């Protein structure tokens, strides 16, 4: 019961935040609602017992990426931009197509639930009985044993992105 209330709270906040990100005129407001949405998502992770991901989401997404966004929004002076038209001309087409996509995906989900041959989404998830290791240790073991090469590749990707960002941000190269 409590879990369900929490879920609906976080889910509603996440979706509402997402919608406001897309509709807000001012980029800083969009960023604030994106932060809300991301935090709500972090809450969703908690309801899924993924507490390490909860923390990672806050540290990396909220404390890292979003700071970068806000930083750039402030550097890029948007006083002028506020008075410009915020949406493209193809808004309606795009909106319709997106809703069509949503309807399609929802239909697929509904079909999957009803069909017996489709993917079994309905059965209650089987959670292993309280595992000896905590969530953090499990992820750590996984990352540093099974996925150590992807992990290193990701770190190189970050390094490349770092260099790229520095080069892009430089005035004269």
């Amino acid at each position, binding site marked *: 019961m409590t*879990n369900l209330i929490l879920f609906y709270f976080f889910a509603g906040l996440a*979706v509402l935040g997402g919608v406001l990100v897309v509709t807000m005129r001012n980029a800083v407001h969009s960023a604030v609602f994106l932060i809300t949405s991301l935090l709500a998502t972090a809450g969703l992770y908690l309801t899924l017992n993924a507490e390490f991901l909860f923390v990672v989401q806050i540290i990396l997404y909220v404390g890292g990426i979003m700071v970068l966004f806000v930083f750039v929004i402030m550097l890029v002076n948007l006083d002028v931009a506020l008075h410009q038209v915020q949406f493209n001309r193809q808004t309606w087409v795009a909106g319709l197509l997106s809703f069509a996509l949503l309807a399609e995906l929802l239909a697929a989900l509904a079909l999957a639930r009803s069909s017996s041959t489709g993917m079994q989404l309905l059965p209650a998830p089987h959670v292993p009985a309280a595992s000896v290791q905590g969530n953090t240790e499990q992820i750590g073991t996984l990352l540093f044993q099974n996925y150590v090469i992807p992990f290193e590749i990701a770190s190189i990707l970050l390094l490349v992105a770092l260099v790229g960002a520095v080069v892009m941000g430089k005035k004269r190269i």
Partner: protein
Amino acid sequence: MIPTSHYVVVSLLLFTTGVIGVLTRRNVIIILMSIELILNAVNINLVAFSRLVGSVEGQAFAIFIITDAAAEAAVGLGIIIAFFRNRETVLADEMDILKW
């Protein structure tokens, strides 16, 4: 225990919102933010299914996606800064000369 389908629906909604944002907004920064929303929707799915399967691999994948998002944001915002410095705009449909 909340059914996995609930999470999938939330993820779908977020995903669609993100897609709408990417397709309709003119401001590149907001487009980037919408991409973050999409990535986030994917993460919810991954974590939800990871619980369904009963392993944490999905969470590990989510961490990779967050890493990707960070890299993408850094480079994307770097490009926006560079572009703004030269062209004084952050609107996607004004970025139309391919080379400057």
